[in-house]
Structures are given as C-alpha cells and as structure tokens.
C-alpha cells in the first residue's frame, strides 16, 4: 500500500445511479462500494484477485473490484449484485441460487452470480464445461460447486424462456 495519498473526486455510475466520491489514489473499487456507498453485497475474501467473491461488471465485463482502483472506474458503468435484482424482484440467477442451496454461506455468491451474469450475457446457452470455465475465477469453499453449475444452467434456460 502506498503511503502518500492524493485525493481525487471520481464520478462512478453504479447500478444506473451517478455517485461523486472523494477517494484516495490507492482505494480500490471494492473499498468505495462497501465502505463509502453502502453497497456491501459485493464481498472481498482474498484482497488480491485470487478468489472472485468481489466480482462486479464494469462496462459489461466481469472484474475483480478488490484489484480495480477506484480511479480506474471513473466514468465506467458498474453493475453490482444490488443492481441485478432484489428480494422483491429476483433475477433468474438469484432465484436459482437462492432456492437450490447453491448459496451455502453466501459469501462467494454475489461474485459467482455476477460472473455467471457476464457469461450468460455473452453466451445464453452455455454447456456445462463452458459454465465451469467461465466461473473458474470464483472460488467457493462450501458447496463443492455441483449445485452452482446446476443453478447457472437452470437460470440460463429460464432466461431463454425454456422453462
């Protein structure tokens, strides 16, 4: 971590809403989401891009918010788990994870779902192998992954309107 800090005012477009935030040069997007904007749905588990629980979408691409400087996100469109849906209006991925015990402790779940969202945006009909490859940047310690793969495949077929 750097010692000398410079403060910047950044404009972040998060879940469709514009925020102006004063940040230090070395603050991560994850710090700003969680500690300044109360968007605590995005988690952190490893601090350095090793586990994926902090995954958010930046201009439609899944990125690790713990390894993205807040200043890098200036002007970008950020989508977090809170912007995907909520308990009143669940996204099909959230629904399939919630009801099938694909979220055990729930810590990797937001990152897993955002990573799956990125996959399904680009590939609405993935194979099981493609789901595994796409989610391999997010680790889970509880489920053993089987229920997660199934939840993503189930949600994909719901989004395609097949079930």
């Amino acid at each position, binding site marked *: 971590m750097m010692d000398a800090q410079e403060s910047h005012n950044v404009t972040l477009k998060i879940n469709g809403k514009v925020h102006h935030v004063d940040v230090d040069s070395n603050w991560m997007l994850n710090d700003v989401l*969680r500690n300044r904007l109360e968007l*605590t749905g995005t988690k*952190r588990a490893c601090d350095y891009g090793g586990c994926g*629980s902090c995954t958010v979408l930046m201009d439609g691409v899944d990125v690790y918010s713990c390894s993205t400087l807040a200043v890098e996100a200036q002007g970008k469109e950020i989508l977090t788990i809170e912007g995907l849906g909520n308990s009143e209006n669940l996204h099909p*991925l959230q629904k399939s*994870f919630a009801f099938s015990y694909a*979220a055990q*402790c729930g*810590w990797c779940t937001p990152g897993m779902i955002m990573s799956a969202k990125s996959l399904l945006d680009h590939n609405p009909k993935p194979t099981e192998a493609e789901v595994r490859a796409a989610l391999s940047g997010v680790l889970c*310690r509880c489920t053993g992954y089987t229920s997660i793969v199934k939840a993503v495949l189930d949600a994909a077929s719901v989004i395609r309107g097949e079930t």
Partner: protein
Amino acid sequence: MSGELFTVGKSVAPVYGIEKATGEMRFPADVNLPSMLWMKILRSPYAHAKIAAIDVSDALKMPGVAAVLTHKDVPTILFGPYQNEIYSLDEELRFVGDTVAAVAAEDWNIAEQATRAIRVTYETLAAVLDAEAGAAPGAPDAVLHYPDFSEIKPGDIRPDQLGTFGNIVGLKEGGPTVVNQRGDVERGFADSDVAVERVFRQSEVNAVSHEPRACVAVYENERCTLWCSVQDPYRLQDSAARVLGLPMDAVRVVSTNLGGAFGVKVTGRFAILCALLACKTGRPVKIWFTREEESLDSHNRSALTHYVKAGAKKDGSLTALQVRTFQDNGYWPFGGLGQNIAFAISTRPVDLYHRCPNVKWEVFAVRTNYPSTGPYRGRADAESHFPIESVMDELAHRIHMDPIEFRLKNRIHEGDDLCSAPGKIVSTVWVEEAARAGAKTIGWERRSAVPAATLGPRKRGIGMAMVIHSCGSNPAGTSEAEVVVDLDGRISLFSGTPDQGSEQQTTLRQMVAEIFGVAVEDVHGSNADTSTCPYDSGPFSSRTVYATGIAASRAAEDAKKKVLEQAALLWKRAPGDLSIAKHAVWVRSEPLRKLDLGEIARAAGSPISGKGVHNGKDDRLFAYGFAAAFAEVEVDVGTGEVKILRLVSSHDVGRAINPMIVEGQILGGAVQGLGYALTEGFCFDPRTGTALNQWFLDLRTPSILDIPDIEPVVVELGEPTHPFGAKGCSEISYVGVAPAVANAIYNAAGIRLTELPMTPDRVLKALQELKSNAP
C-alpha cells in the same frame, strides 16, 4: 415420530437463500456505522520474542489516528475461546503474526500506516518450530510467560492443564498428553499373522472460510454491542464482559450469519481489542481481517506425525494397534483445545474398530511457535483416519481379504461401550449399511484385488475408507431454544446458534413446523443474538441438527402443549381431545370446531412460550455418525498427477430432515476433503516460523475445474435419541476422503502415500521407491 411427515424429509428452500443471493444478507463485515473508526493490528515478525520497548508516539501524532493499544494499556484479565487462558495483549509474542498492538483511525489506510509507525524493539527468543523436537527433553520453551494463576477462575481451565511446564500439553512431564490403552499390544502383535508399520505425516491446513473475520463494536452508556464473525457468541459475550468489566447482560453479541466458519471462528483477541478501542474512543470501531490474518490468526488443523503399527490374524481379526502421535498444538499457553483433540484422536478410531482387543495410542500435543490449532471440520477424526484407514487397507491386502469385509469384521456394534465417551454406549451404528450402499454405487466389484493392474502410464484404481465422527451428541455443549406463539398467532423459533452456511435455521424450523403442522415459511424467528436468543454453545461438532434440533423440538412440543392446554381450558375439554394443525387447534370429534393460534394466545393474555434444552451429559446412549468414502482415481506415473474420476460419499445420517441441505453438506465436505488429500497444506520456513503460502491462491483450495463427479449416498435408518431420528453429517463428509484417495492410489499404482497432501512430487517419489525396491 410416526406416520406421514408434513415438512420433515422434504427439500424445502433455504430460509436465508434469497438474502444470500441478492447480497442483502448482513454479515458482520457488512455493518457500517456513522463516525465509525477502522482498526488494524500490528503483528509480530518473529516466531518467539519479547517486546523490550514499544513507542507509539509517532503513530498517535498521525492525522486521523484516534487510539493505539499496547500490552501496557489493556487489563490483565484472561479470556479465551476454549479455556480462558490468554490476555488481549501480552509482552511475549509466540508466533509470526501474533498480536503486538492495535490502532483505531478514521479509515483503513490511516490505520494501516499507523501500525507501521509504531516503533518496537523486539528481544528474540529461542523458538520451537517442530512438534516432535519440541517434545524432546532440553527443547526450548515455546511459552515462557504463563498467565497468573490468580486470574484463573473455577471452570476456566482443567486442573490437569496446570502445573509443570514443558512443551507437552497436559502434565505428565516427559510423558504423552493422552494415552488410550487396553489389553496388551505386545501380546497382540505376538498373536498376529501379519503386522504393518508406517510413519504418516499431515500438513497443517486452514479452514479457508471465505469471509475474513470481522467485528464492529459500539460502546455507549456502559453497554457494548458486538457484531462479530464468531460461532460462539455467548463465549464472546462472557469474554468481552470480563475484559470490559461489564455485567454479561450489558454485552450484546450478534453473529446471525457467517461467511463460512468450519469450526474455527471462535472468540479471539481481534474482537476483544475492537471492544476495548470502542470503549477507549467512544466511537464505533470496525476490524476486518485481511486474508493473511484469516490464515494465520485462526485455528488450523494441526500438523501431525503418526508412528503406527497394527497387526491382524489371517482370518481378519485385528489383534493390536499401537500409535504414537505428535500433534503440533501451536502457541496457546495451556493448550487451548489441544488436549480434547488429542483425546479424540486416540479414542475415536479405537471405538470404530471396537473388536481390536489390544490398543496403545499415545498423543503428544506439543506447544510450538506456530499459529494456533483447533477444531476444524472433522476435528480429530480427519487427523486420525488418514493413518488408520491406510493401515487397515494394507492389513487387508496382506491377508488377501476384501478391505470392506476386513473393516466390517472388526467394527463397532450397537450398544458397545465407548472409550471416546466414557460411561456411554453407542446407540445406532449404520456403518455396514453405509459401506455396502457406497460400494454398490461406485461399483466395488470392478476393483481389482491386485494393485497396479492397469497397463500403460495412466493407472486406475478404487479405494475406500470407513469413518466415525461426532454427529452432534457432544456432551460438552448445551443448546437451549424457545418457541413462541405470538398474540397474532405467528410462530417463532429463537436459537442462539449462528448460521455459518449449513442453513440450520431451515432445518430447525422444519422440525418446529412439523410439530405445529404448518409450512416452514410459517415459522419465523431469529438466531445468534445474545439479547434475544437463549444460550447455545454454537454450531460445532455437527451438533446443530442433533443437539439444537432436540432443544428446538422440545421447545415446540412445550409450546404446543401449552397451546392445547389453553384451548382445553377455553372449551372445557381434555387436551387429548384436541389436535393442532394449520395454525389452529381443532376438536378431534367435531371437524368444524377450531380456534386460531392467535385467539388462543390472546385468551391466555400473553404470547405462549415453550422452552427446550439439550445437554447429553447424563444420557447413557450416545449417537455417532458413520460414513464410508469411495474414490476412483487415475494415477499418471509419468507426471505423478492424481486425477479423481469419481467420489462416492455414503453416510449414516439417521434421517435427512432436508435432503437438499444434507446432500449439499456432503458434497461440500467431500470437496474440502479433496483439498486436504491432494493440494492444501501450509509451508512454514522451518528456521523462522514464517508462513510461505498464506495467501488465497497459494492455499490451493479446489476450484470448479478440479471437481470430479461426486455422488452422495444417504442411508436413513433412524436414531432413537433424536425426535426425528437425525444425525449431523456436515463434518464427517470431510473425514474419509483423504484415506479413500490414498487407498485408491495404492490400488491403482501399488504405492502407499503416507504424507498429506498427496502432491505429484510425493507420488513420483513413491513410484521411484517402488521401482528401486522391485526384485
């Protein structure tokens, strides 16, 4: 319970599922409060040292720093997760990463920088960096400064943990921590036709909960509230009250949901220091561990060395088992839970192979200058079954007997006495059923009785292991529960146990719903808030479904009885004439006559509350969980790589209250067990005690690409000591995997791997040895 069940046995959706999938769930790390300060810890760079001098003046001068705590600023009052045996800060530092000082500042950056502005002069001390060497006479002391006896209160530490101090926990100077002995092993070996002797080594592993520990403390009006990632909220309440000098009811701990815990998230210095800083500054204070802190300031599974010798007759009778275990206990002054773990290591496998007449198992739990060890998923049994199940496999092979039949011939039976729970007898033992169901699923008959039967460089084989583990009937724990029928008829369960991912609230509410004849969505309530929930020891030893389940069922039955009594009073009928279903009480003989639960509570003049308690201390019957794990592997003799083709995990669960959750726990445990088998393990620099792989990817937990086809098998034959016949299975699912894989590797390639993790270099080394020993 007889007859058709309404919700028990059904895969109902998890009650916390939606909150988890939307990110709306508030974990302790998600609590942010106005004017909150951030806390960071300065950690020891030395494995063993004394703080000769500490100067915090530069740190305090930094803009944004609110307070710094060193050992000079904290009360010398003991607290602790297991026994109350540690001060919140101490001048002696006992491992690389030990807590030196704590800072509170306006944000996380400033706090971090302030820790680096603290000037410390360390006086380094000789360190113990190998358990076996630490047990030898003349070894330096891993702990020099022991807490003052006058501080120790009755009930904190068992008398046998006090006394002379060497590095061996427990007190027979020069002797082991625990000896479990029966019969005469020398005679047993004389009686045997074959004997095997091997040394096994297992690396220290971390639970790798994905939520790094967090605590947010608020101190106002001589009351303290802590939102904290702990499995033992009532212990933290007790500890914080002691150190802050507050009555227990002035301390509230909330730990409703945790992002994984696996046994290791217990009361720690981080939470006590957070509370002290909140008290000192008068502002809310938050600490949130980095991954490095989560790896090292935790309670890991011990590194172990086992010297094993076992003998059997040609007919398959075990005649003798002799083991000497060295268990790296870490830095705790009196040993933390090391002694309990040592006892379970030396007794559980002996209970599983109850027919073995001659046993001597010694465990040396040794204090070292490494991180703390403690009860991680499969506590004690993951430690002991790798060597035992490997040796059972080898004995079976040597006498040309099927490994399953060999194990079953020597196994425990219903009603057998237990050396792991003295004075108690085991209730149900469905281990044979689990083993046979698992064998059928994997296709055991395909297994070649001769090892290394596959031609070519990729050799396939099948192996198994049979295991015993706590299913929740740990007599050291107590669970209380309350079920309330409110004035509006709403049914709520209050339980003190945190949910660390097992969705126990779903399972517990299913039991309550069953008793009241309502859907699980109609049972509400809260958990793990010491201000609203009754006491629970916490989700350890797979005890929630079993022990808390018994308490919750008793509470529901008690509330139901009171509801029926109240309705009987209103109708002037005997309670036996009435039944309860669909949120109402009905008269059996008059199908249209009913009173809603709310009307009954209103008539009673207050909410109707039922209480239930479980503590198995005085029960003679003791429930155990059993399982059999089967692995099919492919060993590449060119690269040493072990590919898992299939894993079958077969469990005696008594009864699955929620099959989806039970299978989820079995799958999750199996994957963690695979990590223990193949990839995970701390590397410490043996000269300095510094961890070399404490960061996430270096911990090498399995990824979504590493997972084979895993098939859970659930054997449901009941358990009479539980109202719905359930046994916990979340931990035992971990235990059998590593030995099953080791035995499959033997079956595939003819090599016995005796060290965990079974990495490619170890496989290649064993293959080389096999080649050089060939005639």
